[in-house]
């Protein structure tokens, strides 16, 4: 395992308590399908928020809205950060670039110099345990490996945001879904370390309640059809297993009452 050097991930800044992202009565409809409705949420600078919810409830849509990739149908989003770093649900690697070049692209587009770029790319690849596989193309990698490349790219992009002034935001959509338990554990710890060191605000989508409780300061449960905030839990100072049980029970309630998810 590699230590992220000072250069790769710059000095932490003071945690700000004000909201860096605010959604007020946001709705998003795709034709007749309302993915999100009257959605309200605040994320504070340096906060780690986990989102959970049924499959198809609108979590990815929410992240897309925050990243400015889709237009709202109603409501308003106030964002006090620079362009968020995003890890999509799909790895979305450029198929013509090697793994290393995919990660490097994040740095290159941010204007990092060539030599610096190479070093930092290697560090990020080592971080996601893909050191030595940098010259493989996406189609030569396994599903989990691709996901880790995407993770490395998102972290590289976030490291740029952290270098700039002002608070920054990291949006992650099921980043560890295709990983085995051990690798997942390791990467969770790495993510926490990075978060503690640079304190970006993190919005983290996961289906693993245990993971949500372990990582998040706050866990937000969404209902589906349309997506709304049903309940929130603060994870600080609550015993993990108790909270997991509690959330699971509520989740079962919320998802159960949606019938078979078709509306």
């Amino acid at each position: 395992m590699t230590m992220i050097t000072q250069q790769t991930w710059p000095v932490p800044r003071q945690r700000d308590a004000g909201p860096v992202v605010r959604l007020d009565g946001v709705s998003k409809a795709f034709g007749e399908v309302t993915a999100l409705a009257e959605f309200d949420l605040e994320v504070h600078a340096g906060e780690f928020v986990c989102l959970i919810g049924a499959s198809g409830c609108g979590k990815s849509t929410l992240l897309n809205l925050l990243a400015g990739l889709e237009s709202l149908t109603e409501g308003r989003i106030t964002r006090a950060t620079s362009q968020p770093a995003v890890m999509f649900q799909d790895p979305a690697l450029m198929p013509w670039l090697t793994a290393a070049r995919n990660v490097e692209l994040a740095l290159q587009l941010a204007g990092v110099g060539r030599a610096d770029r190479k070093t930092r790319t290697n560090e990020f690849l080592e971080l996601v345990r893909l050191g030595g596989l940098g010259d493989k193309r996406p189609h030569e990698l396994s599903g989990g490996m691709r996901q880790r490349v995407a993770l490395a790219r998102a972290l590289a992009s976030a490291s740029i945001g952290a270098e700039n002034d002002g608070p920054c935001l990291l949006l992650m959509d099921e980043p560890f879904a295709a990983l085995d338990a051990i690798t997942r554990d390791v990467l969770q710890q790495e993510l926490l370390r990075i978060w503690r060191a640079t304190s970006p605000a993190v919005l983290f989508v996961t289906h693993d309640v245990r993971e949500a409780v372990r990582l998040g300061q706050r866990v937000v449960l969404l209902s589906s059809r349309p997506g709304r905030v049903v309940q929130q839990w603060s994870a600080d100072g609550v015993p993990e297993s108790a909270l997991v049980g509690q959330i699971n029970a509520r989740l079962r309630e919320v998802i159960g009452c949606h019938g078979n998810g078709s509306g």
Partner: protein
Amino acid sequence: MAMVRDDRSIQDDLDALDTPLESAPPSRWRRIIRVVLPPLVAFVLFIAVWQALWALAFWPEYQLPAPLTVWAAISDRFADGEALSILWTSLHRAVLGFGVAVLIATPLGLVVAKVKVVRAAIGPLLSGLQSLPSVAWVPAAILWFGLTDSAIYMVVLLGAVPSIANGLVAGIDQIPPILPKVAHVLSAGRWALARHVLLPAALPGYLAGLKQGWAFSWRSLMAAELIAVSPQLGFGLGALLDNGRALNDMPMVIAAICLILLVGIGVDLLVFRPLERAVLRARGLGC
């Protein structure tokens, strides 16, 4: 650096190159304006520049006729129904030739794309044939088929088939390999693979090939129509163009160019554009 965004995302900031993202559906009225206005403005601008150049008289009249003169040349032909008969003759041949070309090129493209031996054997030949100008076939076509419609169709086919087949091959080459794999595990036979996976998956590339193939058919037809003119063979756009050329009659040449463009743009707008949109829309691609 707080930024407030209302109702619409950054994509409306006019940085179109930047954000090829979905937008809220505009009203019917605005959509029509969006579709109709830009080409209209482009057209008017073009005519205005032309008129201005003509008015400035940089070139003598016989080099650059006034827009009105050309319009007169066109409308004369429309008035006595000649233009319609010319257009009909050519269009009808082109559509027939193109249709046959598609029927030949599609299986050919499939086989070339998927059977390695065939690809090695005739793949380069197909590309080579594309770069052979249609007029090259004219002498041979006359000698072999005589002055018949068959000669014209031969020239058209030799122009269009390689282009369509190559388009299909390019389209098939771009299919994500997982899709044929899915077909394989669903026990698809060759025919089912081609019909249910390869052809639809290659459709965007295939359509691009069809468009180019249409262009080639149409151009080849213009060349073929110069073979001979007779009441039996009918008088087409190619002959009109060539007459204008032979007579050094710029208004006539430009009128023929306009008619050819009219057909080209018309076919694009009425046939290929909607097809393309439907294909891309269904896949969540394009704009």
